[in-house]
């Protein structure tokens, strides 16, 4: 089964550029942990674990986009809308790290490249667009679905161009950059549409079942409804947890 590898393999991008992006990814993850912990409470932690597990599962579901070409969800926009941009980027990173270390998918040397593209660029681009769209669209399941769809298309294409940028900096072959860029953009528009449908369905479903668990509904609301009953924090693990 040679086609089950899904992310950048070792050797496609040279070692110095891979190392530089590993450093960049590390800094980005540190920032995400720092900012994300403001959002992470006892409720969001298991939810974020679930979002990561769900993204892992759906990434296995390659769908055909062209003859001989498939695509799979990246998950950045889905994660950002459900658990926020910082924790969302960490969810996608968790998936990529598990895939690399446990399932040998995505080279270890290329891990920083993959995290930069899918967890950082894809999530950031998609989230910024989603935040903009939600200023105009209603924060109900339909509005969230439209937002998730559009932001996913843009987020996926942005992530694909991250690879093109890395290839331009340190590709171990010398193919024409515009051609690579066009190939990647073309296939990833279609992949983004598939991702958008999945993300829209998922976000709308969660928004119907448990709107309180959708970050985009809670945090984008201008005036908070009575902040949900805050229970005394000393419920579990009294000591130095």
């Amino acid at each position: 089964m040679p086609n089950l590898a899904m992310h950048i393999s070792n050797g496609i991008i040279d070692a110095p550029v891979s190392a530089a992006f590993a450093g960049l990814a590390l800094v980005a993850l540190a920032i995400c942990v720092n900012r994300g912990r403001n959002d992470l409470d006892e409720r969001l932690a298991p939810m974020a674990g679930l979002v990561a597990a769900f993204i892992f599962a759906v990434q296995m579901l390659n769908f055909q986009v062209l003859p001989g070409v498939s695509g799979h969800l990246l998950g950045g926009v889905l994660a950002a809308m459900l658990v926020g941009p910082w924790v969302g980027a960490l969810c996608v990173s968790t998936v990529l790290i598990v895939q690399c270390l446990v399932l040998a998918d995505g080279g270890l040397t290329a891990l920083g490249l993959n995290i930069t593209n899918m967890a950082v660029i894809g999530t950031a681009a998609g989230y910024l667009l989603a935040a903009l769209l939600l200023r105009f669209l209603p924060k109900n399941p339909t509005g969230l679905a439209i937002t998730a769809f559009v932001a996913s298309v843009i987020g996926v294409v942005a992530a694909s161009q991250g690879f093109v940028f890395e290839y331009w900096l340190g590709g171990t072959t010398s193919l024409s950059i515009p051609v690579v860029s066009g190939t990647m953009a073309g296939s990833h528009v279609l992949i983004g549409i598939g991702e958008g449908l999945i993300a829209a369905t998922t976000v709308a479903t969660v928004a119907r079942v448990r709107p309180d668990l959708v970050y985009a509904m809670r945090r984008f609301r201008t005036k908070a409804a009575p902040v949900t009953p805050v229970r005394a924090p000393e419920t579990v693990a009294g000591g130095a947890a």
Partner: protein
Amino acid sequence: MSKRLWIFIACGLFVSLVLAGVVSNFASSSPDGLDAATLKGCTTDAEGNITGGTCMAQQTKDHQFKDSPLADYGIKGIDNPYLSTGLSGVAGVLITFGVGYGVFWLVRRRRPSGSEPADEAAMSSSGSGGSS
């Protein structure tokens, strides 16, 4: 912690397990958008091996963990491809949830940040500890 939340989490995990354990066997086996781009310029045989031309994928080096028990979404020693893919998916979902929940639990906010008044009110305003 609320029971309703955990019911939701359990349902979500169940859906994820079914997707990774069963539906994954019906996924397209064509190379994904990135892989297809790295193969552009090369010709491949029916099994996806490069037979000629010039493309990025020729520079690909082996994965450091190619011999790991779950490498390439299969389980070493299980010959049935459906079982092998499905079980690797189930294992991956559980590992990802475990690692994700574990890390997020460890780095979570230990006390209300103080930015939200409602949270502040819930805290007894006496203990102003050090680390946040």
